[in-house]
């Protein structure tokens, strides 16, 4: 299983800081697609981290990995 974490407005949108899902074997891009269908999230410009390390769209998620979605924000 995998812990999927959401930051900033993504967290508000999902309503929880994290959800548990089996995403092992999926790429980040596939997980983004899945989450956008399930929660209506727009994730194409959101950064992903696997175990607190930057992950590109083609990185494959392993069982037990923690995945975080961090939207780059622009306010200043």
């Amino acid at each position, binding site marked *: 299983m995998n812990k999927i974490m959401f930051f900033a407005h993504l967290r508000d949108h999902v309503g929880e800081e994290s959800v548990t899902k089996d995403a092992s074997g999926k790429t980040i891009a596939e997980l983004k697609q899945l989450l956008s269908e399930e929660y209506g999230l727009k994730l194409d410009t959101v*950064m992903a981290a696997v175990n607190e*390390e*930057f992950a590109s769209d083609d990185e494959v998620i392993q069982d037990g990995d923690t995945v975080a979605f961090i939207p780059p924000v622009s306010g200043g």
Partner: protein
Amino acid sequence: MSERYSRQTLFPPIGNEGQERIRSKHVLIVGAGALGSGNAETMTRAGIGTLTIIDRDYVEASNLQRQQLYTESDVAEKLPKAAAAEKRLKRINSDVEIHSVIGDATPEKLEELVEGVDLILDSTDNFETRMAINDISQKYEIPWIYGACVGSFGMSLTIIPGRTPCLNCLLKKIPIQGMTCDTGGIIAPAVQMVIAHQAAETLKILAEDWDAVRTEMVSFDLWRNQYTSMKVSKAKDEGCLSCGKERTYPYLQTENMMKSTVLCGRDTVQIRPPKELEIQLSELVKQLKSLGYQVKGNPYLLSVDMEEQRLVIFKDGRALIHGTKNLTQAKSIYQRLMG
């Protein structure tokens, strides 16, 4: 070294030597809003050599909740933020040479300002400008520090050419503006937390304590009590057009630059003429008054109150049209008044 900086020189990683280095450095701050005013104050108090700060906006009442350099009298005078910031910073520390620039941080303008600069502190509110800063940082090998916040959330990343990935490696394309900025508002502690991260990184780099520089992207949510660091070294992309082997600096190519922009989180459109103008503001005030418009002016700008919108024109021909997000409508108002 003067008594003034004793608490900073007593801090072992800085010391007298670090302070002398800090004193010899020139920092460019892009933006004089919430992050810009806090970063500018911190760097001015820390005793850097030269500070250049550029901003296109003027002070409004809704800024005062978090933009720490400004006062009610700046609002009443509608002072440009860069001018109000310079006035305040000079009173805080007369040792520091302060240059303020009222204008848009276009790629051309940034290339002009970056000469002799040791570090760029991002304090803007949009990714168009950040991507231009990112390209300039790579082109001239100047470190820059990304910082941004919305609501109670904020983030920062230190980008050092040749050592770290750049913002274009991480983002690949410009994120959609409206994604966060219109909705969340902002609380001052989130601003201050981003400033704390950016300013600490700046001091490390100015003091040349390179080993101390943070290599992760930090992000936090002060209200939801989340805090995370993300290692980014893997993001370095050799094919990146900003920092890779065959770089083109795509965000410095200005032919595609927008001439009108909806400003982040505000019911405002900015119009920028293709070429900078030199407007005689006092003449324009007279002209518009004779046409029956409600006009107020100061040496930097004039503002015209209309029924639904308010138009503010700067000397260089740039205008902010408040009360609309419609680019076409904004352009037509601009053209109606400016010909």
